[in-house]
């Protein structure tokens, strides 16, 4: 359950922060992340339709990736009225920032279980997070192949 070995270092730190929180503190932390989600960079504004969609989330979620100096940078578009999903997106964007495509691909798809969010969110909401991870991996694979 507490295995964070092998996660990119910033993501491992985030997971540890969540592990140290109890109950509603986990939600408070997730809310802080949802508020930290950066806006789309100018080149993607208004182009959400061309970004990768995450259809598994009921909320319209789009993600795009770019490679900066060998590291991945992910950009997310998530509506303001879905802070829970914004929170996941922000954790993934921040936790995977500058990770190599190989590191992204080797991410266990259920790493979020180690954060203990299942205590405060229903399992099916967490599945949305697994879906975001799956789409992020797809973009990493595309980056490696391009």
């Amino acid at each position, binding site marked *: 359950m507490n295995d964070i070995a092998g996660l990119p270092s910033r993501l491992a730190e985030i997971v540890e922060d969540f592990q140290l929180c109890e109950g509603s503190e986990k939600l408070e932390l997730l809310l802080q992340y949802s508020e930290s989600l950066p806006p789309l960079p100018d080149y993607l504004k208004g182009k959400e339709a061309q970004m990768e969609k995450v259809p598994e989330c009921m909320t319209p979620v789009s993600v795009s990736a770019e490679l900066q100096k060998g590291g991945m940078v992910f950009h997310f578009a998530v509506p*303001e*009225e879905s*802070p829970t999903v914004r929170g996941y997106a922000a954790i993934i964007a921040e936790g995977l920032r500058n990770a190599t495509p190989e590191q992204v691909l080797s991410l266990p798809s259920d790493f979020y279980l180690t954060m203990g969010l299942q205590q405060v969110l229903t*399992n099916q*909401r967490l599945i949305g997070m697994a879906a975001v991870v799956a789409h992020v991996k797809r973009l990493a694979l595309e980056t490696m192949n391009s």
Partner: protein
Amino acid sequence: MNEGYAHPEYLVETDWVAVHLNMPDVRLVESDEDALLYETGHILGAVKVDWFTTLQDPLRRDFISKAEFEKLCSQLGIANRTTIIFYGDKNNWFACYAFWLFTYYGHPRLRIMNGGRQKWTQEGRQMIRDIPIYAATEYHAKNPNRKIRAFREDVFRQLTRRLPLIDVRSPGEYSGELLHMPNYPQEGAMRGGHIVGAINIPWSQAINPENGTFKSASELRQLYQSQVIQPDNKIIAYCRIGERSSHTWFVLKYLLGYPDVRNYDGSWTEWGNLVGAPIEKETNK
């Protein structure tokens, strides 16, 4: 606007809420699908209930018990005489679920804010982040009102008597193409389809999408009566876990005034897992 509803007193408009939100005998309760939305801003004075962490028993598959419900109301500063106004995101989906549960435990004065969060924010009304604290009350719940809740035995009895069942899920879930709600994977069942004989009237058809308010009485009447649902029928509504069907339950019981409507909260996640339960997959009614 509310003309023609059977019990318009169960709805309040945003204008009314804006004027009455400070009244001591009125308590606003936000109930959302999104677990964090309340924390990002809510109506002044509103408290939060969360359908998963507040209203569900943490161990058994059931709602909180009567004693736990009394404790919850006490903590939220709700007294037996308090008028509770529910509102929430996604067309008041979980606001109706909370309304149903509070009806189950017999709270007498319950309302839904028509349009929910969507209309309130569209109108540019104030949202704040301060979480109010109210003095604890002494609250006495009534015994559960079984007349609004269907168990699986009631559904079997409904089938034997050939009385109507309304499946309020999406057409794909009803037909069995999907084992779960679109975009909510793994909240599903072993089998896809619907309860034999159930007709499909998706819950969100009762809503005006542009502002999240309920459709007019005549539109609602047409929606349900054209599907052979008559007011004097005993009706059972179900969905996947009983939340979307509590929305339809509210519409039929209070807006159209059908006297005997029950919500089968076991819903598809019970029926679709139940050994031997009769299921259909065809989409034609």
